[in-house]
């Protein structure tokens, strides 16, 4: 008997998604689409609300490394953080394929169901790598504060890097796109990623402004005029990161528009 097709609505968490996978196998249903709170999406399939159940989610989570290998689990957890449209559907298809095929599923790179996830996860990894370098902190009363506007949900992956690097500092990274923030404090050692609707940092103090000026001067000095190569710079450092980077902002409010960086750079040179 073919499995019936349904549309799942769940709470948007990873555990919620795993519960959906569980429900689908228990009830012999094929989810045609998923919707999380905030998604405006109408479906022709009968909709079913899935209540997150930690125990059921756990059973699916435990099965992943066994059936799909450790790499498969890795791809699922990372895939859930990507900005891939309809990522839940793609992840579901991948898991279903993995249950059939076994651990070799992660090597089936020519299968569309796998290739699309690998590509999305690579994009996530690339963005994380760039942001490790491009995030800029400001100091405010002993706390380091940064803002980012990533396409993927990078905070869970960036966390370990910055917690190790600034293990003795208190810091906060605010993700404007997904409206959540990573907090860290050293004693007692604690971190948390929590939803945060709005965040407005205070104006920088004198010491902060001095360091920013020193950095801008260093950045402008280190370039060799005879080798000017704006195209190469843009390849390595796409422009969408610029407006949150110290070197492209004079001390104007941080929320300059997309053409802000170019303008402030011109002001600097004149």
């Amino acid at each position, binding site marked *: 008997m073919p499995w019936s097709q349904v549309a799942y609505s769940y709470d948007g968490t990873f555990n919620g998604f795993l519960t959906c996978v569980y429900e689908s196998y228990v009830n012999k249903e094929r989810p045609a689409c998923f919707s999380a709170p905030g998604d405006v999406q109408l479906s022709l399939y009968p909709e079913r609300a899935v209540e997150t159940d930690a125990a059921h989610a756990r059973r699916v989570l435990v099965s992943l490394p066994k059936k799909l290998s450790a790499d498969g689990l890795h791809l699922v957890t990372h895939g859930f953080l990507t900005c891939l449209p309809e990522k839940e559907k793609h992840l579901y298809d991948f898991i279903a394929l993995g249950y059939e095929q076994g651990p*070799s599923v992660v*090597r*089936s*790179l*020519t299968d*569309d169901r796998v*290739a699309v996830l690998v*590509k999305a996860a*690579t994009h996530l990894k690339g963005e994380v*790598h760039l942001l*490790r*370098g*491009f*995030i*800029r*902190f*400001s*100091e405010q009363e002993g706390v*380091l504060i*940064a803002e980012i506007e990533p396409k993927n949900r990078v905070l869970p992956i960036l966390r370990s*890097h910055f917690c*190790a*690097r*600034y*293990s*003795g*500092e208190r810091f906060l990274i605010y993700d404007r796109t997904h409206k959540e923030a990573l907090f860290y404090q050293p004693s007692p050692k604690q971190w948390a990623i929590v939803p945060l609707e709005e965040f407005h940092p205070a104006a920088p103090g004198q010491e902060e402004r001095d*360091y920013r*000026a*020193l*950095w801008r*001067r*260093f*950045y*402008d*000095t*280190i*370039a*060799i*005029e*005879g*080798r*000017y*190569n*704006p*195209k*190469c*710079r843009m*390849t*390595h*450092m796409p422009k969408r990161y610029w407006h949150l*980077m*110290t*070197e492209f902002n004079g001390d104007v409010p941080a929320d300059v528009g997309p053409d802000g960086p170019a303008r402030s750079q011109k002001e600097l040179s004149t």
Partner: protein
Amino acid sequence: MELMDKLTILADAAKYDAACTSSGLDRTSRPGGLGSTIMAGCCHSFSADGRCVTLLKVLMTNRCVYDCQYCVNRRSNDVPRAAFTPRELCELTIGFYRRNYIEGLFLSSAVWGSPDRTTELMTETLRLLRREYNFWGYIHAKAIPGADPLLTHRLGLFADRLSVNIELPSEQSLKLLAPDKGKQSILAPMGQIRDGIRTSRQELALYKHAPRFAPAGQSTQMIVGATPESDLHILRLTESLYQKYQLKRVFYSAYMPVSDSKLLPARRDFKPPLLREHRLYQADWLLRYYKFEARELLDEQNPNFNPLVDPKCSWALNHLERFPVEVNTADYETLLRVPGIGVRSAQRILSARRCGALDFSGLRKLGVVLKRAQYFLTCSGRMVEGLRVREDGIIRHLVAQERPMLAQEAPEQLCLFENTG
């Protein structure tokens, strides 16, 4: 003098150093300390010339006793001079590091008074950073040729990477342009650092807390285009440096006219040989990751790289008898030698073909770029459908593909078309 002025002078004087990497070492912070390093390194910005900015690259001082003709800091050059105090430099490094502007410090120096005194000053800065500020970010330090080996050793105990610049690629050029530095005074510290690293590795295998000497290895750089050496000469030198001194990296720096000396190319209308530098880096990668040897890439008849196609393409065109390669059976080394296939593509091919035979659309899904590779590959015995090219046609296609990527410079030798057409 204001800190801002010092930073300007001493960053400006350091910018001609090409090396700016923070790779080769994974380390987390010690308890209560600040900073970590990652194996792959981390770029924090890119300057207007497209080069990566990862470390705070400054000189301790630009006051110099030497008079090397190619160098902007030479004694006879009339430029403002400055020097950081160790404390100033530490504060600046920590301030930048906490804001995630940089991955660490790249400390070089002109020779102030004597090599020994300069090295002592640099060591004091690094000691302060590591011991007092508890800083565990990346530190790259320049060893000063001519300094006492003991002092260089102390420097290496605080730094992650050490480097000695070989500056010019031959002894004659060194004699001519840098009369105060001899070949021996450059190679001696390089050998010393190599031995220090080796000893430190052995000790660490026995005792967990043995002191670590330059754990991220050593590198060097040379200036290209100031003197008449051929690419072949430079590549051979590079290869022997990798083999004899176990360097992690060799950097090339296209000569920028900073002097009116009669011994150097005239400053007017001089264009830095950026394309040549680019080709040398490509070849350098082939040596380190693609298992090529210098003698395969260049020989006495062709001592310089072809400006129109990259060194790997050029090699493949001269060895067409080895192609096409069958994607489904070729081993890793053979795949690596196909133009357009890099380390990542080759590994993906190996992994994917275990699940079934690959065809060209499968290769595209893996992310293999076929633009160049298609001329050199078969999938299950077949070339790309509709692809019919003769030998000279391949050259023309490859040259046409390469050109837009070299937007910076007009290729110099357009006569290749006439030869082949």
